[in-house]
């Protein structure tokens, strides 16, 4: 793989900034992997929870969200790296809001399922 052109742009920044950016990328990747594991575990280990169709939809949605998030982690890392190298402000991102909404919806749906399945049992 050849050296990307943006690595020659600007100047080498303080290594602490690039290391922090690298860790941020890895933290987002772990978040994606956690969402994915949550979806798969939900589907495999909770067969009596809620309507099966809804559980399948939720699991698939978490898997798709994980795939999208992992790609976004990389593009975000790259944009941040370029911004740091050229001394521009870090780009604004709506990723945090979207992730919060995904987590809130998942938690809400699962809570309803837990209450309903408990009432039935």
């Amino acid at each position: 793989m050849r050296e990307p052109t943006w690595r020659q742009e600007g100047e080498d920044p303080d290594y602490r900034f690039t290391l922090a950016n690298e860790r941020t990328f890895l933290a987002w990747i772990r978040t994606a992997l956690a969402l994915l594991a949550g979806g798969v575990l939900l589907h495999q280990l909770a067969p009596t929870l809620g309507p099966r169709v809804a559980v399948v939809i939720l699991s698939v949605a978490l898997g798709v969200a994980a795939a999208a998030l992992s790609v976004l982690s990389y593009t975000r890392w790259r944009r941040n790296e370029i911004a740091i190298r050229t001394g521009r402000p870090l780009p604004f991102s709506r990723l945090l809001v979207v992730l919060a909404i995904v987590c809130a919806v998942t938690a809400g749906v699962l809570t309803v399922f837990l209450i309903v399945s408990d009432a039935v049992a």
Partner: protein
Amino acid sequence: MSAAAAAGGQPKDAGLQPERTVLSWTRTAFAVAVNALLSLRAGFVAGEPALVAVGALLLAAAAAVVALAAVRRAQLSDVSPSAPPPRGALLSVTAATVVAAIAGVWSVLAVQGAAGAGGVPGAAS
């Protein structure tokens, strides 16, 4: 931090930056390994050899991330480290995560198909 340290010397936690970065790689390897095991389990439960194969592949990917952590540890062990991550390393981790996500969605749909065909009593939708 004292004013002198802030003005001239190395910041107090300069030496810990590489350590935190290496630990971050290690944690990521664990997260990949967990998903690899889930894919293996789903493959055995659903009787899908392809899912088992992807699980084994992801396990190898987790080992590769451990190796990357070791590479980063070596690169960043200088007094003043400035090495960027190995070329393509971050892109490979991204690709492994996408593969894991595809396997996860696939495992959900595969087990669902088996349940629909009467594989798991009472679980059919």
